[in-house]
């Protein structure tokens, strides 16, 4: 079981190193296939782990292996150790499986880019980092994976480094994530101060004061929110769409941004001791899913619409994990990985076919030319909205039902948010659908469309899309909570759903009915507005501007953090560094010189003056002796 986990972790790293060392000595395509193979080998390792784990008793499915002691000081030590348990096995499968499909897709998508090798080295490194994050056997190693994931996302977002906007977006993503890393590190310092350890076991069974518990949980939540683009640390995600589309699919949909949910599930004993903070996480999710859904309504960039829908869906996952239904949150993570990767990759097909165009207002009627893309996108869209029998229906509804199961006032607020979110999802997803795919192709599409040897894309792009379309359809059948729930049972040893968040069958049924109706209502409204044009979009310029400015978060941060920091620094440099610190040395020198030129006047060079001083000095000494006597 541990052999599989090491294979899974190290194969992509080996791929990265191989590509880096070979450099330009190997053809581009070879680099691409090295990366793809290494990620599929990792998937093989994950499957191996999973199969072995399944043959064991549920109680003994967790195992830690240590390679060597990574960091040690005093009585604190943290090993380079991996933990395999049902939770990490699920994540390993998702990361390497969906990741492998996306790397395969990249072969076609990136074909012709003259820095393809660098891209594939980065993307294999990303998969390695993500696997380290989910397999890390203690909190420190989890943080290492966490940081490396941030690093590789920086590298990939800024891959086209000659575009200033891409470089800016990459830096923004990294700094936001570094902020999350910092709050997590602070949480860990509290734990070290109390337990001298960052092992999962030692810290999950310890009982700290409630202040300390709350602070630790808040620190972890800060990290989770930064990585998962939840309010208030969400502003980097839409900008991150500057990266190549497969990167958006891999990092900003399928794996990295969902790491926050994994973190909550992994450290749930800490969150459960700080239940208030856990509910704050749920509230953050509820708020984010609404805000992101609203912003998505006015976006015109195809990738940004999907990016906001990602934020919104992660909001659902936070909601689920936050109320204590970890398995439901994780299940939505799984299905979301399928359908969101599918949506991004079909969008990528469209962008690729239109020579890089991303504005949906120019894309009308594309479905006529790209039927395969159209139908696959429709599968993804229906799964996203949660229409049965597509996968989103099975996972999203039980999250909302868990909120109902709480039975408290905030539980009902979460429930209402979830339903409203479903309506928004239907509206913005099918706004995109109706604007892009149906109807007669627009002149722009006719002019710019170019196929790939008679197909809609290279086979390396079409095959993963097809596989994911299948998974987005059937992936959800794994579990329908009221009737069968193998996924929840599987995760139970690692992250047992809290009793308060386990909905009854009745709650499941009426929640499902409500979400599906809300989703259908959203679709119907989108149809009426964007297809039939029987309803006009209300003008409401203030709200429109607010949404287009993404609720002014960027402007707010700019005014509150960036500009004051710049002003402070400029002020410090102008008022303190240059006139005081840098001037002290020269001033000291000047003073010394001035004193010297004052004193040197005594040295007249005349013998008589010197003799006079000599005589006066001698007389002074004699006088002093006489007086002393």
């Amino acid at each position, binding site marked *: 079981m541990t052999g599989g986990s090491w294979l899974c972790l190290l194969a992509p790293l080996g791929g990265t190193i191989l590509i880096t060392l070979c450099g330009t000595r190997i053809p581009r395509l070879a680099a691409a296939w090295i990366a793809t193979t290494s990620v599929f080998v990792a998937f093989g390792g994950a499957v191996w782990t999973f199969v072995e784990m399944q043959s064991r008793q549920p109680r003994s499915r967790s195992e830690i292996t240590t390679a060597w002691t990574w960091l040690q000081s005093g009585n604190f030590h943290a090993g380079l150790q991996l933990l395999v348990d049902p939770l990490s096995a699920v994540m390993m499968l998702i990361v390497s499986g969906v990741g492998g499909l996306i790397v395969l897709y990249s072969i076609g998508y990136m074909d012709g880019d003259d820095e393809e090798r660098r891209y594939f080295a980065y993307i294999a490194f990303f998969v390695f980092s993500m696997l380290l994050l989910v397999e890390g056997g203690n909190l420190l190693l989890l943080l290492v994976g966490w940081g490396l994931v941030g690093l590789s996302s920086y590298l990939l977002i800024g891959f086209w480094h000659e575009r200033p906007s891409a470089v800016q977006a990459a830096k923004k993503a990294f700094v936001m994530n570094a902020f999350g890393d910092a709050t997590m590190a602070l949480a860990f310092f509290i734990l070290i101060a109390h337990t001298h350890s960052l092992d999962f076991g030692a810290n999950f069974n310890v009982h700290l004061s409630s202040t300390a518990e709350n602070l630790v949980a808040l620190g972890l939540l800060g990290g989770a929110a930064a990585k998962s683009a939840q309010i208030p640390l969400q502003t980097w995600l839409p900008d991150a769409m500057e990266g190549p589309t497969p990167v958006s699919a891999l990092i900003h949909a399928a794996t990295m941004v969902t790491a926050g949910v994994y973190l909550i599930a992994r450290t749930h004993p800490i969150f459960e001791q700080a239940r208030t903070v856990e509910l704050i996480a749920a509230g953050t999710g509820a708020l984010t899913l609404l805000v992101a859904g609203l912003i998505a309504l006015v976006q015109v960039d195809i990738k940004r619409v999907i990016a906001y829908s990602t934020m919104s869906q992660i909001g659902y996952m936070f909601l689920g994990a936050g109320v204590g239904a970890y398995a439901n949150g994780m299940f939505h993570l799984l299905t979301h990985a399928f359908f969101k990767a599918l949506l991004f990759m079909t969008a990528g097909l469209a962008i690729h076919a239109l020579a890089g165009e991303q504005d949906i207002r120019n894309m009308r009627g594309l479905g006529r030319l790209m039927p395969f893309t159209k139908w696959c996108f429709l599968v993804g869209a229906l799964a996203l909205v949660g229409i049965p029998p597509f996968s989103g229906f099975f996972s999203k509804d039980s999250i909302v039902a868990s909120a109902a199961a709480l039975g408290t006032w905030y539980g009902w607020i979460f429930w209402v948010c979830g339903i409203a979110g479903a309506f928004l999802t239907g509206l913005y997803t099918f706004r995109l659908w109706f604007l892009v795919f149906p109807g007669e192709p627009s002149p722009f599409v006719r002019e710019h469309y170019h196929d790939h040897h008679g197909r809609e894309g290279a086979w390396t792009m079409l095959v993963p899309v097809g596989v994911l379309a299948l998974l987005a359809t059937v992936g959800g059948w794994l579990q329908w909570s009221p009737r069968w729930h193998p996924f929840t049972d599987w995760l139970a040893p690692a992250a047992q759903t809290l009793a308060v968040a386990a909905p009854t069958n009745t709650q499941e049924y009426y929640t499902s009915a409500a979400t599906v109706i809300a989703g259908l209502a959203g679709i119907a409204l989108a149809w009426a507005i964007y297809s039939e044009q029987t309803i006009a979009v209300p003008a409401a310029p203030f709200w429109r501007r607010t949404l287009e400015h993404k609720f002014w978060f960027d402007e707010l941060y700019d005014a509150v953090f960036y500009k004051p920091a710049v002003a402070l*620094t400029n002020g410090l440099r102008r008022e303190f560094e240059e006139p005081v610190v840098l001037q002290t040395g020269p001033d000291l020198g000047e003073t010394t010189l001035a004193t010297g030129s004052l004193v040197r006047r005594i040295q007249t060079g005349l013998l008589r003056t010197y003799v006079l001083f000599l005589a006066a000095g001698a007389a002074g000494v004699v006088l002093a002796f006489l007086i002393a006597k």
Partner: protein
Amino acid sequence: MNATSLTSILIWLPIAGAILIWVLPLSRYATGSLALLFSLAEVGFWIEQAARFDFSRSGLQMAERASWFGDLGVSYHVGVYGFSLWLVGLTVVAMAACTGYGFWVGRDRSRAYFGLMLLLTGATVGVFESQDLLVFYAFFEAMLIPLYVLIGVWGGARRMEATIKFVIYTMAGSLLMLAAIVVYGLQAGTFDLVDGPVSASRWLFLGFMVAFVIKAPLFPFHGWLPDAYREAPPEVSAVLSGVIAKAGLYGMLRIAIAKFPDPTSFYRTTVLALAAAALVYGSLLAFRATDFRGVVAYSSLAQSGLIALGLFAGTDLGFDGAVLQMVAHGLISTSLFLIAGAVERRTTTGEFRLLGGMARGRPALATLLMTVGIISLAVPGSASFAGEFLILAGVFQRAWWWSAIGAGAIVLAAMYMLRLISAVLHEARGSTVADEALDLRPGELALVVPLVAGLLFLSAWPAGISHHSFFGQSPAATVKGQFK
């Protein structure tokens, strides 16, 4: 060869090499090769020393002692502890790379130049190995003389100004330290660091600390730093920030903290505040600096603050983290300055507004600068992350707000380092970046790649240093027990 003689060999071999180079009328090429040979031999001897060092034993190892002024209690006493071993290693490795860089760019007046570089090597190793205060002082001063000349003769346009500032600051600190040494030695009856008693005198503590705080430097004693780092030749800047600054921090650990436990606790908050100020102030100014070396210079100020934060936390994690971070940052800033030198050679400038777009077509430069830059901003998993994590976790046990400040500064570190990387490598091509400006040449790679490889090795196994610097389970107890 006797293991104990390795300690003295490491000090005197490069000094003998320096004298040899000054005496022999060799050509530029022969001089450079000879100097490089000596500095590589240093590395070899250090590896031998590290291999023979017994980490399972407490106290001073490979010590040599000979009476010098017997009636004053002064002796030539040298030896190594775990943490000094690492700093000696940092010195010989960084000095070898920098000597190699001087050879690569072909510094003029080569006999003077290489002799001074070797003298600097010997003196710096002497600082880290000497166990007698007067010997320590002698090496501490001997270290400065070559630096004055190296900056003043081979530096940039404003080199005299930079040299004068450097002289004024360091002399002021050294003189106070000399006074403190004399008073301490006469009071104690011995100048020996191993046998000498602890002292409760706050004045003496301050006398030592002034020298170390200027050398490290900490805020607001860094007036010499920006000019010296900008005007010195790049390899000398690399030595200054990578190695010489560590001598100040080493002095804090070996003398100020170990010999003055009571004054240390009395002034702890003050020093921690200075260190935190250096950290935040340095990070902020690095964020707005307009040139390559300016960013690295102010980030060195910030890093010195961070390390001092760890040392004066006085906790196990703080000490271990500080030693680890000294070595990691030494390697980082040496590499960064050498890369800065390589960039300046290709473009004649380090100004950001004139640079940019160097990544395209120069994979080796881009990869190395990215790797070092990313390690330097302490991305989790890197050696400097391990060091900073231990330091901040250590100082957290003193009071939480130091760690909060430190964590904030690390976010700033990400901002300034990414700004540096993209200003040099990314976006539109700068006006001074010619198409035909080459990628790093094999000679430059041979200098920088070993440093980066060392950093990557430390990233894979930071416990190699963090757990092998102080004997026993508790570094704080070891320091308190005078490293015995």
